[in-house]
């Protein structure tokens, strides 16, 4: 009764009834892999909610204060206000440590979910026309989330993250021509400048979240406008969407997912310790702890810095320092490639049609191979970032691990790409149910077919002409 009167009250003022009807009746497909983006979204919401709690206690200052609180080894110590307030949050504020840990776990999980979501979009070809715009928005969301994670864990001014900031400063310094200006302007002077924690704080709680909210709204808005893509199947065409209605089914399912994410995050936040800054100690520019790694989503840059050989060169008599290639060019190239991919693929496949139906990954072995090779490359970079931890546990010399890492980085991704191509091709050609059902003979046949196509006279053209974009899906006979 109240609801009906309330709805009428609103409609008298906003005239929203018909819009509400269409919106609530929108259809979303049910496949579970379409919910991966929602995991990231709800992790973001959790980050905002726990983040607000944290901002009520955190002081983003590098000025010295004396910590007085329950953590005995630091009681009476002169540390920065940022560090003292973080320790206070962890020891002297009720549920403070829980909120801090949930916040940090949510950041790790959000980026993991984002990566898996991007993989789903990539391997099913969901970025194809008309969704290139949403892909661009999404890649920007990924970059911004990555940056916000880095800025967030650097805020407590502890020894581990402070060393990470020093590395970031050196990376800025390594940019040719403008490097020293860039570093001095961003940090506010020579390292360790007083300004950086405060600036990161503003960026972390205001600028980037604002951009994230705006871009997320665009991302979801475009999705709603274009309708969600769907896998081929009975009744599914290029001109419809089949699934559950937004209200009440899909909305309830989505809220259930949000609650499940909160459950996992609170379980992790309460039961598994993360980032014990009181053990790392306050940042001091003359101190360091070993091992020293960033959070996992920055690990690929760290791995690049460790694996890149000691090459420096001079350009016009000026120095291009070592970190420039692994820490500036590689990330720039990574995101450049990510942004360009839909257009690159359009050019390579000559497929400029609009698609509502998704590819099953097996439909496109080349794309799978490219994706697998790239994933292997960045995964290996991440793995090599922990070479000193592996060295300590296995007592293999670090230098040997570094050399092994370099070799694996060069050899691994092409091998992964080739192997993926063969397996996916075999999967497609044989019509088997899943990867495990592919027989060895079918694999060999796929290898033969690949090799045959490589002969002169049968180049890339053959590949392009073969592709028939699916117009009407009639089920599995369309392969």
């Amino acid at each position: 009764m109240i609801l009906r009167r309330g709805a009428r009250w609103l409609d008298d003022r906003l005239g929203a009834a018909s819009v509400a009807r269409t919106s609530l009746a929108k259809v979303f497909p049910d496949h579970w892999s379409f919910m991966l983006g929602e995991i990231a979204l709800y992790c973001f919401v959790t980050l905002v909610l726990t983040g607000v709690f944290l901002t009520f206690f955190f002081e983003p200052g590098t000025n010295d204060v004396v910590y007085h609180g329950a953590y005995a080894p630091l009681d009476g110590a002169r540390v920065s206000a940022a560090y003292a307030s973080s320790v206070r949050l962890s020891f002297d504020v009720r549920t403070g440590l829980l909120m801090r840990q949930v916040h940090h776990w949510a950041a790790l999980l959000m980026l993991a979910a984002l990566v898996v979501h991007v993989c789903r979009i990539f391997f099913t070809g969901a970025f194809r026309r008309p969704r290139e715009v949403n892909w661009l928005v999404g890649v920007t969301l990924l970059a911004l989330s990555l940056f916000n994670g880095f800025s967030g864990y650097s805020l407590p001014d502890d020894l581990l993250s402070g060393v990470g900031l020093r590395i970031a400063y050196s990376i800025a310094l390594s940019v040719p021509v403008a490097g020293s200006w860039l570093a001095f302007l961003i940090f506010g002077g020579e390292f360790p400048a007083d300004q950086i924690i405060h600036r990161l704080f503003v960026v972390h709680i205001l600028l980037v979240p604002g951009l994230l909210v705006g871009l997320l709204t665009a991302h979801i808005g475009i999705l709603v406008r274009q309708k969600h893509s769907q896998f081929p199947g009975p009744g599914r065409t290029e001109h419809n969407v089949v699934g559950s209605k937004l209200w009440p089914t899909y909305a309830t399912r989505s809220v259930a997912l949000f609650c499940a994410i909160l459950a996992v995050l609170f379980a992790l936040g309460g039961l598994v310790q993360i980032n014990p800054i009181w053990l790392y100690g306050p940042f001091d520019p003359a101190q360091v702890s070993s091992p020293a790694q960033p959070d996992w989503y920055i690990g690929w840059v760290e791995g690049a810095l460790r694996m890149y050989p000691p090459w420096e060169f001079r350009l016009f008599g000026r120095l291009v320092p070592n970190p420039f290639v692994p820490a500036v060019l590689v990330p720039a190239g990574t995101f450049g490639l990510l942004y360009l991919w839909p257009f690159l693929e359009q050019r390579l496949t000559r497929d400029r049609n609009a698609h509502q139906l998704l590819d099953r990954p097996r439909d496109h072995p080349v794309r799978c191979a490219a994706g697998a090779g790239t994933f292997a490359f960045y995964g290996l970079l991440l793995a090599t970032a922990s070479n000193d931890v592996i060295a300590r546990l296995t007592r293999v010399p670090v230098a040997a691990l570094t050399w092994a890492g370099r070799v694996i980085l060069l050899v691994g991704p092409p091998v992964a790409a080739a192997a993926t191509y063969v397996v996916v091709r075999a999967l497609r050609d044989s019509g088997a149910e899943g990867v495990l059902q592919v027989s060895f003979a079918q694999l060999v046949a796929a290898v033969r077919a690949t090799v045959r196509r490589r002969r002169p006279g049968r180049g890339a053209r053959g590949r392009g002409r073969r592709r028939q974009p699916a117009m009407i899906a009639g089920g599995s006979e369309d392969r």
Partner: protein
Amino acid sequence: MTRPAADGHDAGVPAGPRPGAPEGEAGRPVRVRPPRPERRIAAAFALTAAAAVGFAAVYWTGGQTQLEGVLLAVAFAGLAFGLGAWSARLMPQGPFVEEHEPFGSSRRQRAAFAAEFEEDLQAISRRRFLGRALALAVGTLGAALLFPLRSLGPRPGRALYQTPWQGGAPAVTADGRPVRAADLAVGSVLTVFPRGHLEDGDAAALLVRVDPGALRPPAERAGWSPHGLVAHSKLCTHAGCPVGLYEQGSNLLFCPCHQSVFDLLDGARPISGPAARPLPQLPLEITPEGYVRASGDFEGPVGPGFWSRPS
């Protein structure tokens, strides 16, 4: 327009067993799920309420991180289960179909939009000169508004080329105590700073006493390490991390960030890892009273490389 799919699934009761449901006798599929999910859903919500009360109680009595986390996790898990089951069992399942028109507006609409837009644009596009003047104004203003970015920091100037170390600067430890040569035995290491500059980020130096006979300094730095006391900048020449690990015996310096290794006996030359330049050395002298002090600044800019760094 949304409509139920042609195979006519209706709201509420799922029309048959899920794929893969076990079969009972005589091949008839057995419904494994309880016929009244409401009880389970209600139980889940009750669990949520109980856990929430538990959390409030734990908080009230002083709080405990693990209990708080587990209770909230259970509370949200109950909600998740209840809502998930509700949406899967008691809400319209569909599948529903929503048709949509192709993306991109019709040709007529596009033409109409283009025509109208062109017409409205005439007011601006016909006045070429004014348009250019506007572009000049906005461009210049935009460029000018970038100038306040300069206020973000000081000019680099000579800051990267020099440190607070200079001739006569006494070496002190992190708590300000002056260092005597006798404080270090062979195989000892201390982090030292110039007096009065304990907070400077580029001032830290590693002071190590090695066996004087083992040192192999280049000719121009022969007198820089009296009695085997040798000092190098602590900042790694790769990415600036403090090179905190000194290995006695092999006399190697190991940077924990990216695993660069420097040979202390050979002018801290990098022998492994991504560092490409040796750690700059600090010339030392010992006063008549036995205190250690610098006789000049480091022999080059400390820390990571930058564009205008001299070789």
